[in-house]
């Protein structure tokens, strides 16, 4: 699914990622943990194609080099980023935005646009599945949403767009336990043999609800340690300083 080799990324001449390697197979869920400033969000941005970074190294997604592919096309090919801070877009209806987005993805896959009625059916089904309030759909995108609502909205979008590679960028930050459970349930119910997840998190807490196949520790722009769920438990006890 995703093959990252010797990835270096810098912004404004500041090196952030320094030779990062990671390989994710279909169906796997990898967690990336690391202290503040270790480069976690940069990794999410670089994978989704955000501009402004100077990049070297290999980024292969489904056998294709991603380096020259712009953000929107990566999204259409099935890379989904659940944002740490989903931005507010005033005046844009949440449901209309989702439909526009879904149709862009469908079009790239050679599928027909979804009609309004089928879309409403789909979106209501997913909203209920996630135990979310339908009213959210008619509100302006993320405007006045609570932190939890914003994150739930990200998970709803993930469900609707049905991507291949899902990057969760500190989706657990700022969530109360109920919202955290909804997010985790959304992720768990989406897991199948074709989808891969890259879960970026600061705390071990989320991994009590989402069971990772692999855990990596990112420090100073590199993966310094990889392991299984136990590594996360160990981190919880010793902190990042205990890793070397």
């Amino acid at each position: 699914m995703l093959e990252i080799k010797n990835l270096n990324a810098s912004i404004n001449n500041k090196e952030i990622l320094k030779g990062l390697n990671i390989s994710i197979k279909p169906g796997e869920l990898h967690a990336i943990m690391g202290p503040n400033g270790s480069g976690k969000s940069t990794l999410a941005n670089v994978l989704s194609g955000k501009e402004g970074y100077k990049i070297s190294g290999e980024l292969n997604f489904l056998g294709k080099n991603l380096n020259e592919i712009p953000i929107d096309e990566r999204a259409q090919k099935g890379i989904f980023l659940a944002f740490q801070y989903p931005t507010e877009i005033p005046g844009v209806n949440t449901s209309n935005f989702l439909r526009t987005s879904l149709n862009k993805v469908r079009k790239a896959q050679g599928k027909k646009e979804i009609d309004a009625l089928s879309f409403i059916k789909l979106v209501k089904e997913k909203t209920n599945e996630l135990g979310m309030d339908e009213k959210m759909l008619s509100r302006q995108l993320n405007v006045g949403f609570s932190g939890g609502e914003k994150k739930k909205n990200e998970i709803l979008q993930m469900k609707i767009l049905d991507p291949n590679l899902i990057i969760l960028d500190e989706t657990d930050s700022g969530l109360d336990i109920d919202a955290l459970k909804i997010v985790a349930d959304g992720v768990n119910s989406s897991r199948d043999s074709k989808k891969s997840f890259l879960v970026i998190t600061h705390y071990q807490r989320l991994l009590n609800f989402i069971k990772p196949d692999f855990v990596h520790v990112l420090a100073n722009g590199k993966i310094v340690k990889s392991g299984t769920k136990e590594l996360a438990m160990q981190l919880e006890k010793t902190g990042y300083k205990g890793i070397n």
Partner: protein
Amino acid sequence: MKNQELDQNKEYKYGFTTDIENVKAPKGLSEETIKFISKIKKEPKWMLDWRLKAYNRLKVSKEPNWQKPKYPKIDYQDLYYYSAPKSMKDKPKSLDEVDPKLIETYNKLGIPLNEQKKLSGVAVDAVFDSVSVATTFKGELTKKGIIFCPISEAIQKHPDLVKKYLGSVIPISDHYFATLNSAVFTDGSFVYIPPNTRCPMELSTYFRINAAETGQFERTLIIADKGSYVSYLEGCTAPMRDENQLHAANVELIALDDAEIKYSTVQNWYPGDKDGVGGIYNFVTKRGACRGKNSKISWTQVETGSAITWKYPSCILQGDNSVGEFYSIAITNNHQKADTGTKMIHLGKNTKSKIISKGISAGKADNTYRGLVDIGRKALNSRNYTQCDSLLMGNKCGAHTVPYIKNKNSSSTIEHEATTSKINEDQLFYCNQRGLNQEEAVSLIVNGFCKDVLQQLPMEFAVEAQKLVGISLEGSVG
């Protein structure tokens, strides 16, 4: 963006020219030109006298120059003041007699005039340079007593109404361009809605400038009699030319007791090329009088075209409890300039006005909101709410807000809110990450920014306007 170069070269969709033989007035501004126009329109003597009075006033009137966008001196002797297709000289009696080239022109603009294809629910008056080509749904409207016809026809057939109301909102002596228009106006629409009648369809005029070196001086007069309602929409396009062309219109609205007029504009005159060569000077005077009690006038404008847009659709709130509204989107890209806003003059008691202005500036463009709220001494318990939002795209454009606020009594309130923001990188990234390309993302965000105004447009035109908002900004973010 890799598409940017391509997009910047995307041509103005309505920039074509119709090759047609014209009848023109002699070049230049003179008594002869005015007599020529009056004669060719078969006007009665009172109309010619009115025009000449305006012309004499013009001779002692000075062009204003306080506006922000400056422009090179216009040589008024180097313009044609009347140009019309030759085939229109012997007024065609039905659409079958209209030159097919003209019908084709409007088809290309998306305004079919044929009975079979005409827009449903919208009656259209099609004005080509200085003459009205056709008006649809006339018969159906006549049955309700509604008059919707070219103003040149109204001058002949409904002289009493025209005499009573023409110049009653914008006097001949108002200001240079209004005076110029009064002297040389050629065509435009006339609307009269009889008492207690709700106009059953949208009325619409489509203005097309075609001939070169020609100014267009449209004159529109709308009267809503007691207890009536009308929604009117105008659209405008022009060919791509290297010279600037002048469009100086006067629009007067009169709402009597309990009447309501909703006036919408989708202005897409040729904006000039990306280096700022060519384009229309859109210097327009629009004013509505809420003359009766409980009357209402609402202006909605989507201004995306023209090299320079300079206009302030205004409301004079004379009647007690009358309401004035102004909803505006002004988009300027490349080298376009806009200085637009409104005037709300509160005279009657309990009058209310609302101003929502959205200015979007991209490229090297400059966008000014200028607005006056004047609550008179006797306009007790009146209210105004103003909201001006500006959105900037890039580092080379400008946005300015110039409010003039006068409150002459202590029982009235005025609220003014203004914001200026830049298009947000995070919003663009978010949309891109959901599969929208740069142009689509900009269009979505800007349409969201303009939503409060767009939703004021009649349904039939809202979709078109949304697309136009996107197209006007193509290539502006890279």
